[in-house]
């Protein structure tokens, strides 16, 4: 590289439990190239790092050259931005504390930043999505689990050890459903995909609301959403109950944070108004009066497949450039 040149691209990586997506992204958030592979094919972390490094080198060479890549950002479950490690991820194949950022930096010879998917999603929304121009907002990810990240004065709040934003593990019910974290009554046990499925099963056995879902024994979230669209009474009631819990949990959150908006992402958010109308109603009933009518409930305008890759690219721009080869 000469003194006149500047690197104009970064790599954004989104590691999910089934699929890992990586992309070359430019300054304006244009995805130049994007590819994927199965995370589950690499139960050993060293094999995973080798595969990912090789793929990153080839996608870079094919899209403007490795020399033009400034840095790398990674979104991963339980990623800790402070340490660059994956820490005790419940859903990932790799156990314990994995120093993924350091491993990739060694292989690739460039700066690597890593953080958890809630933080990265919020960054994506902040720079390229629904939160653009806001300073204080919350991004809530509703998927298999429930995570969140909020911004304070235009900066992500990560907390003392990087564990902030565990909205899914705040209590909304006394002696409620048992959560994977070991506690009872966590918000996640009602509002995540699995929680919604459990609510539907409960309604099937405790009510006689008619439903197409009764014909299937192993329905999943998408089936419930599809049934809502066909005005299935039980499916609609399921979302109503979910929305009530969600509104209550978010009201507690908002009373503490006073956000300009709460932005929802993830596959549960696809339920749209079936979920968010009752959720907003319950939120307005419960939030502190100063905030009533002053907090927006938004669905993300970013594509679910692209948000975390874009957020990871923002993360990559945020660290100091470094190259082994100069």
């Amino acid at each position, binding site marked *: 590289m000469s003194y006149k040149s500047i690197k104009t691209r970064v790599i954004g990586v989104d590691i999910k439990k089934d699929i890992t997506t990586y992309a070359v992204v430019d300054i304006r958030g244009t995805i130049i190239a994007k590819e994927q592979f199965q995370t589950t094919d690499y139960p050993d972390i060293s094999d995973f790092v080798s595969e990912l490094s090789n793929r990153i080198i080839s996608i870079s060479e094919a899209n403007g050259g490795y020399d033009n890549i400034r840095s790398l950002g990674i979104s991963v479950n339980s990623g800790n931005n402070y340490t660059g490690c994956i820490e*005790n991820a419940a859903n990932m194949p790799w156990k314990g504390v994995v120093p993924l950022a350091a491993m990739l930096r060694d292989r690739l010879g460039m700066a690597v930043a890593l953080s958890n998917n809630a933080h990265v999603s919020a960054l994506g929304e902040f720079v390229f999505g629904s939160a653009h121009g*806001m*300073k*204080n*907002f919350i991004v809530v990810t509703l998927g298999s689990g429930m995570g*969140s990240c*909020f911004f*304070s*004065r235009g*900066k992500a*709040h*990560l*907390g*003392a*050890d*990087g*564990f*902030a*934003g*565990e*909205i899914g*593990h*705040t*209590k*909304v019910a*006394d002696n409620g459903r048992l959560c994977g*974290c*070991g*506690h009872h009554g966590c918000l996640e046990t009602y509002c995540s995909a699995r929680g919604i499925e459990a609510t539907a099963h409960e309604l099937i056995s405790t009510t006689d609301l008619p439903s197409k879902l009764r014909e299937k024994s192993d329905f999943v979230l998408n089936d419930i959403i599809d049934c809502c669209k066909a005005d299935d009474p039980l499916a609609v009631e399921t979302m109503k109950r979910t929305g009530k819990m969600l509104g*209550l949990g978010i*009201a*507690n*959150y908002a*009373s*503490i*944070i*006073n*956000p*300009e908006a709460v932005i929802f992402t993830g596959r549960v958010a696809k339920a749209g108004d079936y979920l968010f109308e009752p959720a907003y109603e319950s939120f307005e*009933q*419960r939030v*502190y*009066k*100063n*905030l009533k009518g*002053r907090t927006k409930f938004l669905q993300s305008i970013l594509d679910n497949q692209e948000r975390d890759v874009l957020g990871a690219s923002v993360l990559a721009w945020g660290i100091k450039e470094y190259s082994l080869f100069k």
Partner: protein
Amino acid sequence: MLNNNTKSKVIGVDISSERTIFAVVDVRGNILDSDSIPTADFPDAQTFSTELSDRIVSMMEKNGGFETFHGVGVSTPSGNHLTGCIENAPNLPWKGKIELAALLRDRLGMAVAIGNDAHLAALSERVYGSGHGKKNFLCIKIGMGLGSCFFSNGHEHEGGRGYAGEFGHICYKEGGRLCGCGHKGCLETYVAHKGIIMTAEELMAESNEPSLMRSLAELTPRTISACCDKGDKMAIEVFRRTGHALGMGLATYASLIDPEVIILTGGITNAGKWLLEPANEAFEAHVFGNLSGKVKIMRSTINDEERDVLGASALAWREPEYSLFK
């Protein structure tokens, strides 16, 4: 411009429903002079501002003169730092929106900054107390109400409109006690002054067991905790329930913020171990697993009388210097 006049002092003002304290504070947080006026004697905000300004000017003249002061900081319930107003304070004599910063600035001719008491208690802890050197911490105030403020990345989080930190109004029990804010089951109705008295009354009505509380002339958190000190079982149960509610609330708060430390302030914390031990127990039992055993819960080490005045003085230093007379 050569100038040897370093402004080395500020005025800190602490407005509460009974008294308004104003003090001369130097750069190191030494209170050099202090006086007060009864807040309730001034039903009108204009006459209050005039009297307070007169008293502040005489105090400044007595302590080195007007030109040696940098500015004025004011701590008040329902104070909004972003607008400089007192907004709908339920416990102060002035209703609606009072532009106190402007009223005082006009009369004094120097910079005036306003913050709410929870915010300035936290700032005080950050600059002069247990929050010194901490970037992410919570400061909780338990008195007539239950307020809070937290620091994020080394600055106080105020939220989109300056209303953040309404910890007292998160939901503790759905459909529970009616709160002054209009909702039911707010944490404040279980943890703050009136809530504790109500818990005591409930316990006394539930059974015929003997208790020292039954013969108290006046039932207050202070007299109840005095009964605890004498080993009264029912009084201890009052604070056990209060502590449990507090600990549950703190667990929710901490799961969202991931603080290094939680600092407890306000009159109710004088109950000491009767409150703090059950609170800590409930906290550890309900906080997200990653944080259990990591977050310190402690009582403030700053004198209750001085905390808000010191916080107000710290705020005064942040305001750019301004003088009408130069």
